[in-house]
């Protein structure tokens, strides 16, 4: 080996420089580890902050949605059920004043019809809160029913096909999925100007896949994410928060 022949000064210098080099390398690695890890921590904190902001937006959206829903129910009760019941009371009051039997019968009949209308109205409000078909017969029936109603209105052709839905999910999960479908269909009807909507359900690996496609104007994933992070777009935030509760994912293309 040539090193064996090297002189003492050479070995001494090589030892000094080598040790210095190794120590510099070691310190370099240590400094890199410290700084890189700090960078990772900063990134994690940023991510955490973003996640918190997102949670806050979703929470606000869900509160706003709840308030809007309450306002809608209050308006329905106040504007529709209230006048109906007031009119029925007027007819019944007339009975106390008017003693003529034929007129009494007429006003009782009118009051009965109005009360029937009020019952129907309250039933419709109740159904809009929790569709009875969904509760009693499940997601498949409720969705098919909804699509049939849309198709029946004649505005667009809607069809739903469930290929693999043998075991029902929990009622609250079904309700969440149903609300997501409702919101998506509502958006398609409102904004896309579609001629048909088709829903397909499949299941694989303990997961349920729902595919909705239409021939109207749609949005892509990037737009959905953008709208979802905006202060506006309550419906989309509701979709996102419901899907989050279900631990699911939504893809738009």
């Amino acid at each position, binding site marked *: 080996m040539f090193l064996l022949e090297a002189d*003492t000064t050479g070995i001494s210098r090589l030892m000094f420089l080598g*040790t210095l080099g190794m120590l510099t390398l070691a310190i370099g690695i240590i400094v890199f580890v*410290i700084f890189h890890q700090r960078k*990772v921590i900063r990134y*994690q904190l940023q991510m955490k902050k973003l*996640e918190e902001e997102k949670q806050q937006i979703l929470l606000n959206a869900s509160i706003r949605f709840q308030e809007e829903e309450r306002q809608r129910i209050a308006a329905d009760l106040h504007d529709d059920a209230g006048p109906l019941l007031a009119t029925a009371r007027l007819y019944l009051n007339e009975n106390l004043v008017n003693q003529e039997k034929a007129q009494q019968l007429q006003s009782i009949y009118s009051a009965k019809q109005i009360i029937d209308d009020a019952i129907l109205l309250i039933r419709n409000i109740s159904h809009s809160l929790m569709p009875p078909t969904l*509760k009693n017969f499940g997601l498949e029936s409720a969705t098919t029913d909804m699509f049939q109603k849309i198709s029946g209105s004649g505005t667009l052709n809607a069809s739903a096909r469930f290929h693999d839905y043998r075991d029902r999910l929990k009622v609250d999960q079904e309700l969440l999925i149903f609300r997501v479908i409702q919101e998506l269909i509502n958006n398609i009807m409102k904004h896309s100007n579609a001629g048909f909507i088709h829903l397909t359900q499949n299941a694989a690996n303990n997961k349920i896949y729902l595919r909705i496609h239409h021939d109207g104007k749609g949005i892509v994933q990037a737009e959905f994410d953008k709208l979802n992070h905006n202060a506006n777009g309550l419906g989309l935030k509701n979709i996102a928060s419901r899907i989050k509760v279900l631990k699911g994912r939504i893809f738009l293309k």
Partner: protein
Amino acid sequence: MVFLAFFVFDLFQIKKVPTNTLIFEFLFFIVVIVFFLFQRMNDIVSIPISSTISFWIAVGLLIYFSGNFFNILLTKLSLDPKIRAQSGMIYMIVTISKNILLCLALLGSEKNEITDENIPFPNDEGFQKLDISNN
């Protein structure tokens, strides 16, 4: 297994001091410590790595092994007293540095380490507890 291999190799070279196996051992430890540091760097995401005991122990050992590497490598090439003295000085400086770092590591109190598997991200338990059913 690696240490067993070193032992067997040492048996054949027992008369030579320091042996080549020592150089391989040093290299092996340097690689292991660097690997350990990189792994810790990726695992710990909530607190600075420098506030953990294991980091300073690893740093102390890395300084020791890398500082003494060339010392071990070259000492056997010369029996000159000047080289021996220089080697001894390097050894002492590096060993004292290592011992100081180990003492500091053991004196310091470690914060709770949070790895990327248990990051306390804002949970969505609130959503999961919502009773949506009308039952």
